[in-house]
């Protein structure tokens, strides 16, 4: 009896367990010190959790993994660049960037949501391609429109030719705006660990908000849609409108999440900071054992911790094992893609099976 139960538990948590084993193996092989790992993880969890959280609402509403959060990240980036360009700094600058990001993200989310409504059942692949497409428009804006169509004079940010943004833009005015709002350092093994306490408060607040949202009337409607859109529609739930709302909320959270990420990094790689946001956030969520149709706040946090531990550990383990950090880097990218593939295959496999059984 308990044996069967144990097996079921292992089956249910097989993905996170596998990751724990991988992480521990890497830590042992690379002889990573607790202080180093803890220091890295404190920073990474603070800056990445919000992006992972932004995926939860569309999953609840039955839209699957929102590969379109890349577009939200772009909104955040646009806001950050302009806020710094206009000379805002510190926590005020971060606030301005957040305010500025809001309408942009709502607009982008509305566009993405409209697209998802036109491509029902293909939201994930549409979101992925929409991210690539939006990247083209983003490049058009920052490579060609800035300094020509849009007046923008800032030799620090603009390429020597007079238009187009540089590859990296310095965001130091808003760097650590949230992280260092409350300074707190903990000594450990001779080094000082920075604890970005305000960022954690922010992330915690968004976790609470997401949990609260799940319990609201709208949240319940989303849940009903996620379980069966046809039944939900018959029950009088405005499915199309709600799908749009779910996408807008997710895009908005992603924009703010990217801002939180950028204030920690302090520079923005204008043309590729956002590209991998979707992939890493989605992989992180799935590592926790979340699926295309079911994910919780706890899983988002657990996944962020596990995935980023592996992220820190794998290049070092690769170096220790094969004398080449490159292997570890390829490995972690491979893991991200493989985790997403396996989750997608399992999801499609199960839903195809359900369909067969229903017929």
């Amino acid at each position, binding site marked *: 009896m308990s044996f069967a139960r144990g097996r079921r538990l292992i089956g249910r948590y097989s993905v996170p367990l596998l990751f724990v084993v991988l992480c521990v193996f890497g830590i042992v092989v690379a002889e990573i010190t607790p202080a180093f790992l803890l220091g890295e993880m404190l920073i990474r969890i603070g800056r990445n959790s919000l992006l992972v959280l932004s995926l939860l609402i569309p999953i609840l509403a039955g839209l699957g993994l929102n590969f379109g959060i890349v577009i939200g990240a772009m909104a955040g980036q646009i806001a950050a660049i302009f806020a710094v360009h206009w000379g805002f700094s510190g926590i005020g600058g971060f606030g301005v960037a957040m305010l500025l990001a809001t309408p942009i993200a709502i607009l982008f989310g509305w566009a993405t949501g409209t697209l998802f409504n036109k491509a029902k059942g293909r939201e994930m692949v549409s979101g992925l391609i929409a991210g690539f*497409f939006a990247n083209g428009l983003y490049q058009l804006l920052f490579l060609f429109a800035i300094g020509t169509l849009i007046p923008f004079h800032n030799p620090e940010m603009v390429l020597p030719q007079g238009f187009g943004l540089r590859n990296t833009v310095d965001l130091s005015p808003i760097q650590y705006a949230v992280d260092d709002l409350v300074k707190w350092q903990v000594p450990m093994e001779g080094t000082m660990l920075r604890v970005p306490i305000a960022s954690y408060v922010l992330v915690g607040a968004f976790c609470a908000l997401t949990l609260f949202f799940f319990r609201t009337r709208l949240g319940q409607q989303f849940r009903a849609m996620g379980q069966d859109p046809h039944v939900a529609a018959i029950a009088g739930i405005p499915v199309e409108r709600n799908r749009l709302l779910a996408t807008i909320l997710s895009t908005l959270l992603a924009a703010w999440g990217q801002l939180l990420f950028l204030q920690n990094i302090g520079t923005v790689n204008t043309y590729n900071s956002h590209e991998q946001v979707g992939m890493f956030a989605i992989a992180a969520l799935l590592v926790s054992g979340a699926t295309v149709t079911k994910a919780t706040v706890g899983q988002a946090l657990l996944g962020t911790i596990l995935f980023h531990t592996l992220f820190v550990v794998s290049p070092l383990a690769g170096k220790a094992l094969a004398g080449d950090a490159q292997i570890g880097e390829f490995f972690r990218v491979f893991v991200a893609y493989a985790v997403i593939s396996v989750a997608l295959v399992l999801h499609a496999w199960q839903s195809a099976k359900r369909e067969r059984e229903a017929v």
Partner: protein
Amino acid sequence: MTGLRAFLKEAGVPRLIIAAFVIVLFGVAVATKMNLPSLVTDSIVRVARNGILVLALLPAIQGGVGLNFGLPLGILCGLIGCVLTLNWGVGGAAGLALASGIGAALAIPVGAGYGWLLNRTRGQEMMVGTYLGFAAVSGMSIFWLLAPFHNPTLVWAIAGKGLRTTLSLTGSFDKVLDRWMAFEVAGVTIPTGALLVFFGLCALVAWFFKTQMGITIAAARSNPRFARAAGISDQRTRIQATVFSTLLGAIGIVVYSQSFGFVQLYTAPLLMAFPAIACILIGGATVTRATVTHVVVGTFLFQSILTVALPVTSQVIQGDISETARLIIQNGMILYALTRVGSGK
């Protein structure tokens, strides 16, 4: 009026816009007295170079698998063929044949496995294919780094191991097909061999879909239940279509590499499916229907834009806008196709 509307519907508005765009680009090139023959030469070379990779998508669409975003799986098979051939030092036409042969041989089991998986993940083929391709490309990156090759022309000079990111084909099968029977007309060089192979394979695919096996595959796609009643298993035909697609992808990359002059490893194949998919869609294919004409027309239109856009626009705008334009056109086209399928699965 109705005639015009019918024509617009048949040709598709995006395709007309893109065709107009190509004409405008060539018009600007002529007006600004650019070297037109060299632009045309480049366009034709690129059609021959990319054509088979676009053609590889056709069997998957016709077989009901949809847009084969998992094309990198086939490409990787072809790359293994290229690397082995280079390692053994087989050059010329024999090298080309050997590389294609190895690629094709590997593509059959890979395609069968991939097709088997796609059968079990119906409705999500595109997403599964995309990420399977991504995972395979990054997994193979580790392989390229660790594979036991010691040929000094292939591995990093200092480390003595790990394949280089690009391998030169000079002295092997560099441009074997492009040069074969190449001739010049009005300053335009025609890469006869490469074009012949492309059109030859197009004809072969067109012929294949007239054989019993091909008809069966297409029939199972257009009406699975009817096909099942006639004793055709669409599980089987979908696997056949996927194998065929993967196989053409493997040959496609070998031909691509000989024309390009380099074999690109590591992350190079990651995004190769997307421009190919854009080509076939621009040609007028949908997620459920494609013909050889779509392949040829689409490849010609899209590759011409890519070739001509850079030199033409660089006269007007500083900076390289062609990459940005490629992203917008390519992904805009795929999005358009995805929103148009609707419920018509």
